[in-house]
């Protein structure tokens, strides 16, 4: 008793082949889309790899690129087979490969599902990478004369302006590190010496933030130095001042940006999975309907199409039996060889 049996005549077979061909070309476009999304994600990670300490994992975008390429190949092949399916001579050369092709499609769909799952789960290790990278970024902000770190200031400033964020968790992170290089501090000034002396590590700490933390929407010119000192500025109360600097932390901002990107890509991959399942089922129907022609010579004869030749349970037991037989076949061979060895 086949699973989901459908009767086909010539017209229905032609319509099925045409629509499955059309869907396969649509699936090729979907494969190109997955490929380009992987490429886009890879480029975005590269652009900000300085902020992730240069050790972010490129596993997910590489996997997406690979999957996209395979999807294009598989679907182009499927489209070609559908196109040839209505011509018996051409279809005869594809027929032996179809069973293996369909098995491969099923495995590919499972891999796509794993990819989609990864898209949603990779957010968690990403969070740790970002936290580490941003902390180091802020530490190296002042090292504009150290090779390898001289662009950290520029990268961090541009990032804070673009993502409208300040510091790692919030702006107070800047109070805990020295972000002004010693080259620009006048060590002969008493004030500078006092500040450095009062600190255990000998760092010049201040309650100020870089200019890139400034919020352009603030009605007053930006207050970036002596932020916790209310008397240093006219009509200023740092407890109630809201619009002066960006309140959000950069880890939050970057995580929501990349998280949103990964969620969208994951959702799109799920849609592609559904499309792939549909074309696989369609191909199975095309294959089975062309195999069961009542009269092979007459193209206008009736035929039947199905998804599985027997029911799900029977197909499953068949597969299990085959696997057991393969395992036993191995054992029998070993036993026979041992016998031959002892004889000789």
């Amino acid at each position, binding site marked *: 008793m086949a699973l989901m049996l459908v009767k086909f005549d010539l017209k229905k077979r032609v319509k099925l082949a045409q629509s499955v061909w059309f869907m396969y070309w649509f699936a090729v476009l979907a494969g190109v889309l997955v490929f380009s999304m992987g490429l886009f994600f890879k480029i975005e990670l590269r652009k900000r790899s300085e902020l992730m300490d240069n050790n972010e994992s490129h596993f997910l975008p590489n996997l997406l690129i690979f999957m996209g390429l395979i999807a294009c190949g598989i679907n182009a092949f499927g489209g070609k087979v559908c196109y040839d399916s209505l011509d018996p001579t051409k279809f005869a050369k594809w027929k032996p490969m179809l069973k293996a092709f369909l098995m491969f499609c099923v495995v590919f769909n499972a891999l796509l599902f794993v990819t989609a799952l990864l898209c949603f789960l990779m957010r968690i290790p990403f969070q740790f990478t970002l936290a580490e990278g941003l902390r180091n970024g802020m530490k190296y902000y002042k090292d504009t004369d150290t090779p390898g770190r001289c662009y950290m200031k520029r990268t961090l400033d541009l990032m804070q302006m673009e993502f409208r964020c300040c510091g790692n968790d919030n702006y107070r992170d800047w109070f805990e590190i020295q972000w002004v290089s010693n*080259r620009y501090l006048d060590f002969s000034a008493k004030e500078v010496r006092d500040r450095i002396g009062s600190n255990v590590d000998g760092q010049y700490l201040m309650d100020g933030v870089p200019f890139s933390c*400034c919020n352009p929407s603030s009605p007053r010119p930006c207050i970036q130095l002596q932020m916790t000192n209310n008397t240093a500025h006219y009509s200023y109360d740092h407890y109630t001042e809201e619009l002066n600097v960006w309140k959000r932390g950069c880890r939050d901002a970057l995580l929501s940006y990349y998280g949103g990107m990964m969620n969208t890509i994951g959702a799109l991959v799920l849609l592609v999975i559904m499309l792939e399942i549909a074309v696989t089922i369609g191909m199975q129907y095309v294959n089975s309907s062309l195999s069961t022609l009542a009269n092979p010579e007459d193209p206008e004869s009736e035929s039947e199409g199905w998804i599985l030749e027997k029911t799900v349970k029977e197909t499953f037991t068949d597969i299990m039996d085959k696997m057991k037989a393969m395992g036993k076949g191995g054992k029998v061979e070993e036993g026979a060889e041992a016998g031959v060895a002892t004889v000789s």
Partner: protein
Amino acid sequence: MPFMPVKFNLQKRVKLAQGLWMLYWLSVIVGILIFSLGIFFKIELRKRSEMMDNNESHLVPNLLMLVGMVACGINAFGGKVCHDSLDPIKFSKWKPLLKTYLLLCCGFNVLLLLVALLCFLMQFAVYLALAEGLKNGIKFYKDTDTPGRCFMKRTLDMTQIEFRCCGNNNFRDWFEVQWISNRYLDMSNDVVKDRVLSNVEGKYLMDSVPFSCCNPGSPRPCIQHHLTNNTAHYDYDHRTEELNIWVRGCREALFSYYSSMMNSIGALVILTIFLESVDMAGLKYLCTALETMTDPENPECESEGWLLEKGVKETFADMLSKVKTMGKTNQVEEGGDAPQA
């Protein structure tokens, strides 16, 4: 003696019709492109209309949108005519319209030339609008509590950050205006009072710039106050300091942005003129080839196609004499009316 005659047989006619049909659909796509470029340009002008004092001229984008739509319509019609041209029955219903259609295409090409010229010339208007608008923008920077101007600070800051520029001509423009609102100045402070009084108009001027002038590429934290005072900062010489703040003026930065946009659009319109001319020439050849078939019943007969029936000089003389007869007809009628009266 026809101008540039070409002999056609059936195969050549079919090939001409097919090639021309594809060319017409390409022209439709180009028309859509011009329409969307017009919309894009309009949006860009709107986005920064505050920087241009809200009186920038939208003539060029509106013309581009109109021209784009007309181009789509004309070229779609041309494509339809080409598609029907190989079927004598369908073609006969288009035949009477073709002369007017080709004249309309000529007029449209002249309009396209006008639009291209405007794209290149209106840049001066944009330059003047920018100069005026930026000057006012800097003046109104501090008025964040005045309705209608409260977002000028934000717009100007974002423009300076995005276009990497400072002030109108350069950063010194900020030294000449008061860009801190009086609400944030402590008028009881002696320093503030001195500075305000030392100025004729009672303005609080300083040698400082807003934070949006800061260059993130500078190796040292941004120096935005006391810019001309070398002793106020350690190891600082304002004459040799280059990377601290943006040195370019915003008028120049914005103008180069809009000017490159308008130049590209103008170049595309000129390409469209060439494309339309090729379309017209092809259609003229196709029409004449189909009209001069030696045996109208036999589709496989030979025919001849040309661009102009007589030479260029003769056609021009013909047109002039037609225009003169139209004028003379009016005069004769007047003379005729007078004796009757």
